[in-house]
């Protein structure tokens, strides 16, 4: 289909797994000298599309180049965290993702033939979005694609394969292969969102380094006609799959994700055959309340994984994001979620630099902040992997001891690690933060992603804090916003002033509690909804200084 048809009303009927986009010839391919664009994004996956939408919303035209002509093949990433949903809200597709996704709170952990314990995620109340939803990646990409197709500043070019990238002082020259032959395109900046086997990374002779795990896993997505509560079940060393782990998780449309650890010696081609998969699924179901349920195999994949990252996410005018920049194990759902956070961090900075509001140095902070976040994700994901698949006999002994003790001792349950589910990094130590000069309690320190809270609008309508934040900076003041803050300089970015208790109500007191507000307390939020400064009392000089700092203007 034509890309633009996606945006028309009623496109709901699109089968995102089957849709094939037309290759469309562009005028750039006939240009005598290469056309010049502010941003070229390589890769139209969840990260590239999120970045494209964010940039377009900030007034930056983008060209998105994808070597393929389809959305995600198979369900792939299925767990989307609250922070990702909040970013999708900003991008205009949070309701669709949250509406279609399955929410879950209960997790059960089994060891051999016994349930060790069950846990409730006990999500904190007073947030617009749940801790997680499960949703097939093709839906997420479909919703992002439909949003992108509705934005005139987004130009997605399917079957455009980047085959060359030359760095120059003020641009990158890309060579792009198409069914009509190659053409060249100059871009001020290139965002490489082209996945774990990034073409851009290879073309620039760069590497992503780390630890590869010698293990193989089988994903079997099965469709079952069975109404069961949406729960996450994790087995360590179950009777039906000895010495390995198994994960069961529900997706929409009656599809269940089953993830079997297979060991390094498994033959990936052999294990992908339905004759091999179906008995494994039947054996699992026989050990659950779902025995004898009819099912059909929807999608299967055998994978290995590595925990790795590039030394630097920025090389000249090329910025790497998502799996191209870093890789994690699937335990903890930190792949797609952290990639979307990369896009969230990069978009406002690229826009500010391209609009001339901030120096190029702001883009360095994209690299530093997201490298820091990638290290945190890799640390969590490596720890989960070491617990799930112990690498030595003593590691296995301790793992099994933890699981044994967890049956009767709550303390041991804190050590059970079947994936610490993705939460966004607090960017401690970022050069964009203004360090605290006043005493504050709580998690909303400079660098923290803004916590949501229920609020009321002046007419009494209930709303959420995050939906009230501006596209530029937001100054949150407990009480009346002082007149002296009305002339705060956003250096070209909007500055929204929000008085808590005046412009927005805080009926539950959760906003004041989460941000540790007292009358006069002032919190400065960046365009990507991270806290960057806070004071017990603010004057214009302090806020102006913190905004300059957050734009790398000093």
């Amino acid at each position, binding site marked *: 289909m034509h890309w633009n048809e996606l945006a028309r009303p009623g496109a709901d009927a699109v089968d995102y797994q089957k849709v094939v986009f037309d290759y469309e010839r562009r005028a750039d391919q006939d240009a005598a000298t290469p056309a010049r664009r502010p941003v070229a994004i390589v890769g139209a996956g969840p990260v590239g599309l999120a970045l494209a939408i964010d940039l377009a919303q900030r007034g930056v035209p983008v060209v998105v180049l994808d070597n393929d002509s389809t959305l995600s093949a198979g369900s792939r990433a299925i767990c989307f965290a609250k922070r990702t949903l909040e970013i999708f809200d900003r991008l205009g597709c949070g309701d669709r993702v949250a509406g279609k996704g399955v929410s879950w709170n209960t997790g059960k952990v089994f060891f051999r033939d016994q349930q060790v314990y069950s846990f409730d995620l006990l999500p904190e109340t007073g947030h617009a979005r749940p801790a997680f939803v499960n949703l097939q990646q093709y839906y997420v990409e479909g919703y992002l694609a439909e949003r992108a197709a509705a934005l005139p500043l987004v130009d997605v070019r399917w079957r455009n394969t980047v085959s060359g990238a030359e760095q120059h002082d003020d641009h990158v020259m890309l060579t792009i292969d198409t069914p009509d032959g190659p053409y060249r395109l100059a871009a001020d900046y290139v965002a490489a969102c082209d996945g774990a086997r990034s073409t851009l990374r290879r073309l620039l002779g760069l590497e992503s380094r780390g630890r590869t795990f010698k293990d193989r896993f089988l994903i079997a997505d099965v469709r079952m006609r069975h109404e069961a509560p949406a729960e996450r079940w994790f087995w360590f060393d179950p009777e039906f799959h000895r010495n390995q782990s198994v994960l069961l998780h529900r997706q929409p449309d009656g599809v269940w994700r089953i993830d079997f650890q297979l060991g390094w010696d498994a033959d990936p081609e052999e294990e992908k055959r339905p004759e091999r998969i179906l008995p494994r699924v039947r054996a699992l179901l026989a050990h659950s309340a779902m025995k004898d349920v009819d099912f059909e195999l929807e999608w299967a994949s055998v994978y290995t994984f590595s925990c790795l990252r590039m030394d630097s996410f920025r090389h000249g005018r090329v910025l790497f994001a998502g799996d191209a920049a870093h890789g994690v194990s699937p335990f903890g759902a930190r792949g797609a979620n952290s990639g979307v956070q990369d896009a969230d961090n990069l978009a406002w900075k690229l826009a500010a630099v391209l609009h001339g509001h901030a120096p190029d140095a702001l883009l360095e902070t994209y690299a530093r902040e997201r490298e820091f976040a990638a290290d945190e994700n890799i640390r969590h994901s490596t720890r989960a992997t070491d617990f799930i698949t112990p690498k030595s006999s003593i590691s296995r*002994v*301790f793992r099994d001891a933890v699981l*044994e003790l967890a049956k009767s001792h709550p303390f*041991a349950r804190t050590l059970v690690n079947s994936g610490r589910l993705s939460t966004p990094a607090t960017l401690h130590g970022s050069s964009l933060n203004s360090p605290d000069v006043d005493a504050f309690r709580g998690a909303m320190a400079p660098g923290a992603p803004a916590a949501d809270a229920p609020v009321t609008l002046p007419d009494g309508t209930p709303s959420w804090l995050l939906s009230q934040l501006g596209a530029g900076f937001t100054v949150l003041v407990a009480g009346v916003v002082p007149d002296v803050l009305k002339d705060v300089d956003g250096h070209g970015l909007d500055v929204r002033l929000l008085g808590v208790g005046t412009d927005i109500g805080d009926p539950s007191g959760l906003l004041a509690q989460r941000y540790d507000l007292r009358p006069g307390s002032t919190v400065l939020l960046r365009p990507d909804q991270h806290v960057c400064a806070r004071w017990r009392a603010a004057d214009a000089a302090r806020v102006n200084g913190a905004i300059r700092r957050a734009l790398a203007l000093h």
Partner: protein
Amino acid sequence: MHLNTAPNLESPDDFYEALIDAHRELSTQASEALNARLVLLLANHIGSQRVLLEALDAARGTVR
């Protein structure tokens, strides 16, 4: 708080006897599992990350 390596056991000989008795008639594998459970229970009782790291160092023999 630091790891206390000064004599602290209420009844050293009784503790040592109980420790060895706990392993009586266990296979090496079962003993290893018991030790692992014991380490985890005691670690939780101690709680302090600093004390636990000092204990790990002391056990590895890197403390002089």
